[in-house]
């Protein structure tokens, strides 16, 4: 594990930076700009978080702005609700995806609903950062993809970056949002690097837009977060088979960018949704249904899904069999050469 450099050390333009550094920088810049931004969670202070995302924040802004809390997720998120009620902008770190579950009651009954319950009188600008997904060799309860639970809860925004730029830009936008945002951090991309400079202006895109990461003509891969690099690699490999694949990075699961996705599928006529979380009841089913409703007459084949198996997340020595990789994506692409059974 590379330890993220202290936020602020990286000043050279276009020097390679990791996603972890970009996230730390986004927190730092948000806190510097807005004194109401407070970071709280387990080990976020002295340690800088187990992934070092909050490294240096307590030193720079003090324990009151970057607070080590008692070990209690419902308490952390519940306290954040009260803080937001008093005009602060709490950014909560959940240590790992599966350890956010004790906080679900607070999330679903209060964070997601306060604006609605109070007829718009009391919005809650809370950002909940959740490192999610597998591929890092974590033992039990350290690799869940919990996005479907969040997506099924009206009142939350659900955002997930796949690039270093987006890690910075989307986190800034999430903290600035007047609505609660579940910010899903693909933990296996924490150490992915890109030429990036915290000093170069990063355009902060509004939450809710998808982007085409690779243009193509013969089919669309619809994906997000940890599966984006898989899809880009698959697209390169597919060239040999004569497939020119378009890759759409959703960036935001709620709100969902129907327009960008449907426009792409109308162009290509074929689509595969790729994600790590289990397929049954997962995000892919929702996305496939939306695409089918909008693009039925343009589709040359059913919308396919490549997802994790419908099993509890497997032990690290078996996780590579569970995670959708390039081969499974290519296999699905081959099945897009679809002929109706007679």
């Amino acid at each position, binding site marked *: 594990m590379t330890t993220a450099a202290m936020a602020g050390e990286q000043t050279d333009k276009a020097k390679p930076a990791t996603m972890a550094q970009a996230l730390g920088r986004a927190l730092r810049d948000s806190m510097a700009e807005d004194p109401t931004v407070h970071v709280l969670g387990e080990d976020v202070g002295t340690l800088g978080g187990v992934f070092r995302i909050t490294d240096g924040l307590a030193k720079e802004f003090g324990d009151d702005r970057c607070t080590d809390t*008692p070990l*209690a997720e419902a308490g952390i998120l519940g306290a954040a609700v*009260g803080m937001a009620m008093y005009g602060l902008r709490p950014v909560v770190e959940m240590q790992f995806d599966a350890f956010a579950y004790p906080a679900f009651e607070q999330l679903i009954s*209060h964070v997601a*609903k306060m604006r609605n319950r109070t007829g718009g009188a009391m919005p809650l600008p809370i950002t909940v950062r959740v490192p999610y997904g597998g591929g890092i060799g974590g033992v039990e309860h350290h690799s869940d993809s919990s996005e479907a639970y969040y997506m099924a809860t009206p009142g939350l*925004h659900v955002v997930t970056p796949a690039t270093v730029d987006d890690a910075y830009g989307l986190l800034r936008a999430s903290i600035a949002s007047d609505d609660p945002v579940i910010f899903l951090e693909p933990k296996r991309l924490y150490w992915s690097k890109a030429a990036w400079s915290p000093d170069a202006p990063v355009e902060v895109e509004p939450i809710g837009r998808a982007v085409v990461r690779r243009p193509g003509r013969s089919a669309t891969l619809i994906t997000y977060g940890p599966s984006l690099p898989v899809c880009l690699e698959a697209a390169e490999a597919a060239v040999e088979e004569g497939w020119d694949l378009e890759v759409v990075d959703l960036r935001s699961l709620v709100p969902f960018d129907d327009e960008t996705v449907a426009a792409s599928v109308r162009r290509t006529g074929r689509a595969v949704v790729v994600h790590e979380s289990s397929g049954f009841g997962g995000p892919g089913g929702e996305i496939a249904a939306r695409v089918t409703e909008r693009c039925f007459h343009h589709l040359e084949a059913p919308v396919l899904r490549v997802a994790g198996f419908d099993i509890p997340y497997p032990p690290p020595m078996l996780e590579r069999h569970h995670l959708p990789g390039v081969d499974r994506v290519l296999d699905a692409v081959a099945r897009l050469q679809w002929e109706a059974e007679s």
Partner: protein
Amino acid sequence: MTVQELPGAAAYRPTPPPAWKPLTDPAPLLPDPEPYRVLGTDAVADADPELLLRLYAELVRGRRYNAQATALTKQGRLAVYPSSTGQEACEIAAALVLEERDWLFPSYRDTLAAVARGLDPVEALTLLRGDWHTGYDPREHRIAPLCTPLATQLPHAVGLAHAARLKGDDVVALAMVGDGGTSEGDFHEALNFAAVWRAPVVFLVQNNGFAISVPLAKQTAAPSLAHKAVGYGMPGRLVDGNDVAAVHQVLGEAVARARAGGGPTLVEAVTYRMDAHTNADDATRYRGESEVEAWRAHDPIQLLERELTARGLLGEDGIEEARAAAERMAAGLREQMNADPVLDPMDLFAHVYAEQTAQLREQAARLRVELDAEQGQDGTSGAGDGR
């Protein structure tokens, strides 16, 4: 083989563990074994007569409010009403002990506390009437929404109090919870956070004997609910919850302590729920009339009325005046609640996000079409304000 026979045993000297001492001395945190009382004791001499009269008027009004709201459920004007009859002393003291800048975090049973704090009686009933969830702006009144999921409002009170202190405001949050609610995880997490952060919070447990049908003995094995405070490092206080002067005094001390930076307090008020859990509950299935009778003899209004009368502070006129004021409130409430609320179905989509998502815009448009079709059919408007 005995210890003596172990090779080298004679030479072995265990290393003592590093010095340990408790973080906090538990003794001052422990509640007195008897619930604190003022009425009918010598302590009453210290009570402010004006305050006692004010509390009396509010108790009488509160009892009438509970009766009126219960009647409104029978007329179908309220979906449900969890009455606080018998518990008015807790409700009133909680509301009156706070300054305007302080915050109240009520549970679903605490409508009366919200009203006593100054909330419009009809707005306070929005949730229970069913025309929306919360009918008021929490920031304007500094009253959090009446909370239905048990104990989940307690960490909010802690977070708010903590935020206020960070901002340098001497604001106190008072959070109310039932005896059943003290078993929920959120209760424990809130108390722990409050103590660690020394947040200016007062937790008021109304121990009214039952959580729906489950008696306290099946809820906890602790000596008292106030004893739970010690484990978190805050003082626990036991008070007679039907003695409004005592509840007001104990809460007052806790609020003052919190405001001065002394941290949180857990107050257990021992009281009794005279009515059923809600109008939909049948209390005869889990408790006998003799138990209810015993508590009827310890009625919070009568306790105070007798005290005030004996001390010559209250006469027939004063009693009549309080009752008449309560009647006026009830008549106003009846009248306002008998008018049908004007609802706009388009509000379903208005308060989900700051900016409507494309998905919600689409769904709103579909509802709009349905409403317009309805209007075409029966000539009435589907939407209240014609939006």
